[in-house]
């Protein structure tokens, strides 16, 4: 089965991001496909590369990055939600004159069209929220 995921909460404060990641890993291990993970609301914070996490704790953004690298999962951060919260890729950072960027490896900035498209193409769209 082909799944698309929507993650609506940031890392650590809520279970949603962990649950989404665990679901993605379990589905892939069983031979299913994860066509895309879309991040909205505070979920965009999953895509910062500036988190410095204590060594004995899970590093949620890095786990997502690894999932993208190992399985080619498309990690898309909503541009509108990301701009509000200060998550910028290099192009957006330049465009808004911020002089920096903070998007983690394997993530990209996209629009809501990509969420709707995933929902249409996937067999199931699963929402992970609070």
């Amino acid at each position, binding site marked *: 089965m082909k799944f698309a995921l*929507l993650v*609506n909460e940031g890392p650590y404060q809520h279970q949603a991001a962990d649950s989404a990641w665990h679901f993605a890993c379990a589905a892939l291990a069983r031979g299913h496909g994860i066509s895309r993970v879309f991040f*909205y*609301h505070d979920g965009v914070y999953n895509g910062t590369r500036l988190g410095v996490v204590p060594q004995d704790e899970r590093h949620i953004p890095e786990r997502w990055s690894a999932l993208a690298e190992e399985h080619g999962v498309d990690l898309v951060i909503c541009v509108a939600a990301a701009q509000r919260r200060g998550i910028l890729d290099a192009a957006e950072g330049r465009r808004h004159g911020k002089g920096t960027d903070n998007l983690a490896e394997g993530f990209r900035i996209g629009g*809501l*069209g990509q969420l*709707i498209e995933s929902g249409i193409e996937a067999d199931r769209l699963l*929402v992970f929220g609070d």
Partner: protein
Amino acid sequence: MGVADKKRILYVQRRAPYGSLYAQEALEMLLMGAAFGQRVSIAFLDDGVFQLKADQQPGALGMKNYGRMVRALELHDLEGIYVERESLAERNIESGQLVLPAEVLPRAELSQLMAAQDMVLSF
């Protein structure tokens, strides 16, 4: 794309309009997503029914007036705008106090509506 090919998408608003950005961003998602030509509906339930109350005055909070934003739903070609009867009653809100005409549905019918969707996006 014919009607048969279009997906049925239901947005479910469950939270109060202020105190968080869930309501506003969910509405923004619907309004953007409505441009993609699917069969879109929205349902307000639980504290989400507060989103439809007329005469919202969030000025002191420094937040945008959601009551004004939500009226944009009327400008879109939606399949339906629903509000749950029990949620209104539990909060002592009458359908005449709403900022736009919404179809009042009992909880049992709302769950049937959800079951009939291709996508349910709950906020």
